[in-house]
């Protein structure tokens, strides 16, 4: 959990409000961190000791729970989430190359976010669109039958749109 990308404008006051509104619930941790993620886009590591103290948990415990769920993030995420499939069907039809190209194009590794917070790159075990393999998803929009040209076009278009 590097704090490198943690933007200084995290409103800890608001985080404390959220904590306060959940702390008396029965199993508050998961809904609480989800709420924080909803509002901030991620769970700032700085908030973890505060959450822990309020819920009588240890910071290592809260971190353990947060890092256990793939859907919880402790780093800010990009405005565009790019997911490339690593599943078997996609793999045999060139998924690996697609991933390589996307990495090159975005200059990002897996699970990384660009410094300008434009993109986050993730990989997925199977997108569930094997018929369209190799596939990828950008911001919940599925793109199938990917090839190098399409990758270029797509990512350029995304940039253009912003």
């Amino acid at each position: 959990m590097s704090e490198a990308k943690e933007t200084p404008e995290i409103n800890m006051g608001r985080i404390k409000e959220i904590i306060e509104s959940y702390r008396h619930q029965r199993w508050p941790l998961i809904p609480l961190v989800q709420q924080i993620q909803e509002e901030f886009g991620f769970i700032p590591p700085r908030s973890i000791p505060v959450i822990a103290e309020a819920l009588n948990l240890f910071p290592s415990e809260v971190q353990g729970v947060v890092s256990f769920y793939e859907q919880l993030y402790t780093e800010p995420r990009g405005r565009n989430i790019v997911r490339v499939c690593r599943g078997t069907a996609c793999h045999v039809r060139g998924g690996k190359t697609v991933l390589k190209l996307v990495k090159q194009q975005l200059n990002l590794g897996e699970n990384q976010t660009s410094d300008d917070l434009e993109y986050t790159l993730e990989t997925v075990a199977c997108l569930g669109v094997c018929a369209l393999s190799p596939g990828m998803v950008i911001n919940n929009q599925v793109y199938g039958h990917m090839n190098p040209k399409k990758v270029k076009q797509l990512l350029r278009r995304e940039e253009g749109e912003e």
Partner: protein
Amino acid sequence: MQPVTITLNQREVSGRSGMTVLEIAREAGVYIPTICDDPCLEPVGACRLCLVENENTGALLASCVTAATPGMVINTHSSRVQEHRKNIVSLMLASHPDACLVCDKGNRCRLHQVAAEMGIGEPGLEKISRHAAVEELNPFIVRDTAKCILCGKCIRACREIVVEGALDYYYRGFAARPATFNDSPLEHSECTFCGLCLSLCPTGALMESENPYRGTTSEAVQSTCSFCGCGCSVSLEIKDRQVVRVLPAPGQLALCVRGSFGYEYIHSRDRLTRPLVKKNGTFEEVSWTEALAAAGEGLQRAGEKHGPGALAVFGSSRCTNEENYLLQRFARTVLGTGHVDNGSSLYNLAIRRSLGETTGFFTTSNFLETLENADLILVAGTDPTVTAPQVGYAIKRAVHNRKAKMILIEPRRTRLAFFAHQWLRPLPESDLLLLNSMGRAVIEEGLLNREYVSRQTEGFEDLSDFLREFPPEKMQEAVGIPAEEIRSAARLYAGSTRSVIVFGSGVTDTINGTGNIMALANLALLTGNVWGSGCGIYPIQKANNAQGACEMGSLPDALPGYQPVEQEETRKKFEDLWERKIPAERGLSAMEAFNSGREIPWKAVYMVGENPVACLPRPQLTEEALSSLDFLVVQDLFLTKTAQFADVVLPASSFAEKEGSFTSFEGKIGWLQRAIPPLEGSLPDWEIVLQLAKEMGDPLPYSSLSQVMKEIEEFVPLYESYYRPDDYFARELEKEWSYWEERHHRVFQSMDGFSRFSPPRPRTPYFQKDGEYPYYLILEAPLAYFGSGTRSGKSRRLRSFYPREVLKISADDAAELSLNSGERVKVVSPFARLETVVEISEALPAGTLSLPISFPGVLDLFRITRDDRRSPSLEPFYVKLERVNLDE
């Protein structure tokens, strides 16, 4: 409880309901291999090695987490089970580095053991390597997560037993591993280096760092830790006559950093190995014969010239019960003086007086087991996580594992603040106002236990009248806590019939020391929470055998068992026993003699194991007093500051080199066993005393230590039948516990059963906060540095890890003075000034500073005052700061 009967490997076996299959198998003597299971930890079923087959259903079950149900048919070694177990171990080995030959865990490694048991050599699987080792800078523990098998023992131990919560799993699946918050090195986490995870880790993933010996020892000797009053049972691992590792003994859940890693002083190069005699101002090494002759002659000469009243003897909390007993007998009969004392007598006296006069019981009124089972714990003026770690663990376990509630009265943000339900931060020197106003709230709101008060106590009316002056609303300003918070704390405490009080030097060593103790006792009496199940009052005793030294009569006013020396019939009893006259007047205490500023009334002193120059306030007074003596004998492990003033220095052996017993602060006896022979040239204190008496022509009639023990049993109340070392180390813990309970009952039966309330009137401090001295200075005891540091300072790793002695200052005050961490300042009191470095601390409220008590020169800042009950305290606590101008 319903018995449960199951079929285990074709045999009918029974257990109690709620037992797991593993537990039943263990009781039946059936071996099931395990890795992640430990009887002290919640089972989690992580390693799956303990698989057994349920022959009714064919299911494979992890026996450590499977409750036995009636009629189960279990096979622990079916071929399916064996097959699976082998696979599991092979998979573990496949992701394990091939480092066994160079791994320190050696044949203590559990993975190694189970692999060997199953005959697995090469796993025959492709190697998958995992994480790199974690970079650690601390000198105690290294982590190599590549060797981690994810059994979770470290995580559970840290969370369930020492309740630091430093570790948890991080990430999931293959990437999962135990980690600290932010994945930082242990030294930046909550870890206190108690060493527990290290002792439980089945593999080489957690290893002792910088340990003197790598590998496995064949010899382990059970003994008692020599540092604090918790008196933990330790297992000393021996290799080539050296203590090379210290682990919690069976039945001891955990130790602390001092117990686990502080043993190095035993083998310090600075240990004294030859007696020294000062000739023309310099020490010369001499033989024992010569040294004993010189010591005996010096004491004798001073006695003959100035009378026995000019002689004094000091016992010590470092010495065993038997040694203290011998020392006070030596003083009273061989030397004929009543001036006997030990370094913990003052604290002990304050507690004895104030608790004795109120509850009628003069020490801790219950055991740690009871504390852990209380529903409400009030902690006042102490950080037991540092001064008495076992008390800290027990409190945290009660709060974390049992959901007990805790009220913390403490200006500093200590570790317990994290666990407290209510944290009260009174202004300096206002504790008594706070405690009295809590008492007032209890009475006013009708929260008292009327039946208890009327049946068991006296003096309620007087107290009730007295406390009318202290309503929370009137006190809130002086205390700095809103009245409603004071009231709610009073309600919380009084609302439970299982409430305990833990207190320490933060409330006792202040201007209202005795008053504070009485006010706490009053709270317990008002609510009937003095003793009995779940109740108690626990004064934290810091030094390891402080309790025993006092109980053995190393005190100026009391013979063994706190029997007053001024009472004729007590004296008679011991005079008949010892066949000698005993001085009838109470002697002078060390503090009275050394610190009054008046001329010291003694001419010769025999000082065993104490270092007053390093422990008493204003050391120059002590130094002057020691220089003015005609003759001084010092007996210690090291050439201490005090020993520098000696005419004869006698080298003593450490706890690992001798037998005897220590009494813990809860009154339990811990036995020492000789783990290694005395360091060449040194002797155990008790042997030296016996030899010295012989040398002086008045031998004490003991030919063995057990004769001393027999006498203690017979003549010291509370020590009846304490001597049981023969069966002690093979003891069954349950039997042990019933012994203590029985002793406890005897103690309370022996008291008259009546307690009395005492109205504690606040004193006006002589030095008050004023414009000139605006900061309140708190003295802190760091975890790794013990007492004056005579021993812990000689333990290399403890010393190297906590080398910085700084003045802590709150962020607010630092900002006001525009000071940054690392800058130099002078701390100025009316008596002295001290230059040091500041560090900004979030733990302190504005207006307070803190310094470690072991800091050289700290004690110069203070002087001793005594309150009207003759219990001394340190003053002043107010100081000012001056910036050190580097250009000067």
